[in-house]
């Protein structure tokens, strides 16, 4: 019986390892390829470890396009959006969970309804609004057009609902006003959800391509996603370019991986806390 259980477990682990390997394989291939020559990348049979590590691929890539600026633009906009979005969503979630006002249910339902709309439907009106505000082709425009998120509001609302009523009442009777309750009680008590949300938002905004590509025209405002695509289209996808493309990809993925490793514990806890599937 014990043997059988052991075998089942072993098979299960084998499948999981295989799946995990399949997931991580492209990343490993990308990382190793960034140090290869063009011919090594396309060699048959495949070459895994380059003969000599081509560190210059990274330098060459940076010489071909201002990836440093793209990266900085992406990091700045994604960070700004994440911070502002979470602050604003927290305030709305607080209002939806702690304040009593007429039309509260209607307001929340309307918000959820907008979530059902495909993002592309809002592109034209959003574009017009941004144009009227004079925020086209600017990082501010990218930030402003992304600071509200129904998903963030919903997730934080669910998390705030879990804060016991007595805790809020205790804070209130200790003299705290709504603003203090939000930042000193609700948010610290929903920290794992906030971390998770911050991760999801950051990754989503960092990877955002279509919308920024519509509103940004000048190269100095490109995000890394737009810049990468531009790099493909202007430089072509010849064999000798691939090593540099891989190098740029490694650089663009690095912040996300770093973020995940730092906040891994919170992320997993947050996913568990929110009752969402990982």
């Amino acid at each position, binding site marked *: 019986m014990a043997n059988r259980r052991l075998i089942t477990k072993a098979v299960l682990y084998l499948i999981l390892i295989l799946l995990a390997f399949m997931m991580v394989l492209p990343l490993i291939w990308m990382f190793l390829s960034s140090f290869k020559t063009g011919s090594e990348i396309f060699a048959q049979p495949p070459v895994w470890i380059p003969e000599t590590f081509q560190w210059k691929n990274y330098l060459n890539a940076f010489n071909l396009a201002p990836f440093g600026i793209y990266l900085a633009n992406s990091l700045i906009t994604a960070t700004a959006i994440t911070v502002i979005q979470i602050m604003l969503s927290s305030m709305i979630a607080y209002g939806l969970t702690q304040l009593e006002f007429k039309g509260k249910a209607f307001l929340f339902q309307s918000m959820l309804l907008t979530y059902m709309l495909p993002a592309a439907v809002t592109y034209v009106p959003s574009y017009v609004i941004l144009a009227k505000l004079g925020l086209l082709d600017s990082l501010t425009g990218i930030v402003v057009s992304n600071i509200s998120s129904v998903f963030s509001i919903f997730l934080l609302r669910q998390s705030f609902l879990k804060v*016991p009523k*007595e*805790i809020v*009442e*205790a*804070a*209130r*009777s*200790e*003299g*705290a*006003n709504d603003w*203090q309750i939000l930042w*000193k*009680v609700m948010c*610290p*008590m929903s*920290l794992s959800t906030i971390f998770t949300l911050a991760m999801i938002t950051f990754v989503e905004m960092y990877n955002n391509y279509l919308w920024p590509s519509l509103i940004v025209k000048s190269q100095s405002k490109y995000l890394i996603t737009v810049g990468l695509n531009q790099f493909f289209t202007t430089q072509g996808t010849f064999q000798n370019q691939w090593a540099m493309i891989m190098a740029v990809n490694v650089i663009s993925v690095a912040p996300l991986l770093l973020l995940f490793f730092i906040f891994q514990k919170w992320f997993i806890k947050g996913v568990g806390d929110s009752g969402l599937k990982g």
Partner: protein
Amino acid sequence: MEKLVLTHLQKIYTQNKKTVIHDFNLSVRDGEFIVFVGPSGCGKSTLLRMIAGLEDITSGELFLNGKKANRLPAKDRNLSVVFQNYALFPHLSVFENIAFGLRIRHYPKQKVNEAVYNAAEMLGLQRLLHEKPKQLSGGQRQRVALGRAIVRQADLFLMDEPLSNLDAKLRTQMREEILNLHQKLETTTIYVTHDQVEAMTMATRIVVLKDGRIQQIGTPKQIYTAPANTFVATFIGMPQMNVFHAAGSDSARWDDFIPLSLKKSDSYTQGRVLLGIRPENILVAADGLPVTVNYAELMGADTYVHGEIAGTDKQIVIRCEPDRDFCSGETVYVRFPEDKCHFFDAESGKRLTIEAAAYEA
């Protein structure tokens, strides 16, 4: 000076139009320890929350320190609430939990430290100041909640069943600690409980509530020795007071089975009067009213004898010295001292000031 005055206070929940507090009137003097006691759902916690500003007042007036405070937000009432489940902030250390109210009011750091250390010393929490609430036991958590309440020198302490989550031994210990704190700080306290022992032992005055209405306000002694109605009579006291209804219709007399008779001068006929007597006031004697013993409970300091008056279905509980043994089915004879009998109107349940005399006399 009156610390808190409640006049004609009423609470109606708008959703189900249910009135949970009816015409509540009370004045609380500075330094008093008032206990609201009553069964579950009697509105005592709602009342406390109305005083705290956590629940709206439908009508009536609430005065704090002589000023009308009906619409004063909870944060501006300068009172501390201790909740049944402690309501500690789980993300803050014991120190920060106690200091919360002071920090919110932007007290200088030194003053915060001083006040928190004083409170911690008073409650024996010095060694736990850096722990998080989840690392503490129930008793320790309740102490932290008390610490948070006392550190701010609030005008009023409101305690909502603060001991009901603790085990019996710890409850007795914490009861003493709360009383000691009250004696030291002399802060006016309103304490909600369903536990009559807490009410009797802690209160300066008790407010007995039922279905959102005041049944009686009085000192523990007044409540016990002169209950205002049958509800108070049976709610306070363990085991509860024996109350005997008349045997039948208006003309029936309880002196058919209890040898006591109302004095001739009283206008009440016995059929309209209920007779109450506390178990400890019943005397077991050589002769008198025969009682068939059903069972006896030895409680340690005394024995509760449960039986019924022979030849009737009237249940009776007698509290006796523990040195005598009682057997099931045995007949014992009891007497009701006239001065220990309570009389209540059979219809309204209200206390009657009438006298009775032994039937034989």
